[in-house]
């Protein structure tokens, strides 16, 4: 069972793709970070919140046949690397898609879905997954 507090801390990123932006070099990161690995010390205190665009294109993908328990009901499914409109690469699950029609460059958008739950009595974890943007 995961920590409720840890999952809670990740809500802004998981629900609304809140990442961060280095005010020194302008690079956008997701998930968010407090430090820019490019600007290093220069970036201390200069990394701000940045909301990543929910729309993007498939940069790469893979079909998963052996799934972790939380995704047992969804297999086979696709995991995609999405290049968002802000030029950030985000990994996530692609759902509501016909597996044989997935292509690199296909437009997708992030939606909120159930990711997992801590058993039948525990907390439900929600977060982004991608769907075809038709």
């Amino acid at each position, binding site marked *: 069972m995961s920590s409720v507090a840890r999952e809670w801390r990740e809500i802004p990123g998981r*629900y609304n793709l809140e990442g961060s932006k280095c005010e020194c070099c302008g690079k956008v990161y997701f998930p968010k970070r407090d430090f820019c690995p490019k600007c290093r010390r220069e970036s201390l205190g200069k990394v701000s919140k940045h909301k990543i665009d929910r729309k993007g294109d498939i940069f790469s993908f893979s079909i998963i046949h052996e799934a972790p328990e939380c995704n047992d*009901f969804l297999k086979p499914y696709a995991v995609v690397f999405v290049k968002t409109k802000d030029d950030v690469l985000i990994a996530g699950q692609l759902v509501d898609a016909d597996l044989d029609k997935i292509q690199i460059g296909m437009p997708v958008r992030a939606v909120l879905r159930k990711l997992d739950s801590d058993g039948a009595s525990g907390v439900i974890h929600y977060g982004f997954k991608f769907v075809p943007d038709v």
Partner: protein
Amino acid sequence: MDVGIVSYGAYVPRFRIRPEEIGRIWGVDGKGMGKGLMINQKSVPGCDEDVVTIATEAARNMMARVPGVDPKDIGAVYVGSESHPYAVKPTASIVAEAIEATPDMTAVDMEFACKAGTAGIQACMGLVGAGMVRYGVAIGADTSQGAPGDALEYSASAGGASYLIGSENVIAKINRTLSFTTDTPDFWRREGQPYPLHGGRFTGEPAYFKHITSAAKKLLAAAGAVPSDYKYAVFHQPNGKFPTRVAGMLGFLPEQIETGLLTPSIGNTYSGSVPLGLAAVLDKAQPGDRIFVTSYGSGAGSDAFDITVTDAIKSYKRENAPTLEKVLANPVYLDYGLYAKHKGKIIMSE
């Protein structure tokens, strides 16, 4: 002050099952059952969808159409449903977080069988009209339950719609609303029970028909209106048969209810039913169109609304989110085995 609908958004999961497939499992004439209920197919949630995700998608579609509205100006979020994922822990706070309306707002989950969504609209109207909030969000969404083999299994479906209620740039003014409520136990689900029970034919005359016709007649009298004053009418749709019959009883014509009657293609989305029907009408509505709406929730009550579409709908960015016609396109049909998996009816090992 004109209070009404500033924006709306709808969402229905893409999966469907047909009544003949359900009937095949239980050894009954499913096709005949569907024909009697006027249901050709019903929507089914994805394995990773529930009321939180459906309500969020509808609310995000609603917000996409009003890019000028700051979500921080939303002072209330109400989610009406009878299938909230938690017994204790609000759906509304999750949805509010997902549309970035938190934290300076109130939120609560509502339940009144199939009419909690319209009750939320009324609550938001009160808050906006009293000047307590600038905008309120009312959502009706469900992943409805129907016991295996029961008549409800042929209709209980999934979907929802979200309404932004305010007094600025109102695309559809709510001229008047009233309700009719009594203690009528026609349908219920006890705490901790997975499936509802119902009173069979008792759900008809003393329940659905009495409450809808009472609320509708009172509203028509209060508004000094007759059915022919309205371009569209939307009635609660537990199946296709009931709203068609109640429309006729009240003097509405089939062409007035046609646009907002979604049950034949998606089934009964419970709390999402009237909100989705109204969304289908707003997808097509033009300035000056008058819309008559009456919901019904077992237990029992009806909320009736007299609505007029305003000129603001001409500059409203309806195209920023999919219309219901687009939402309902390209469905994926399930057999009963997959349906059982989607609905969580299969007991898995620990």
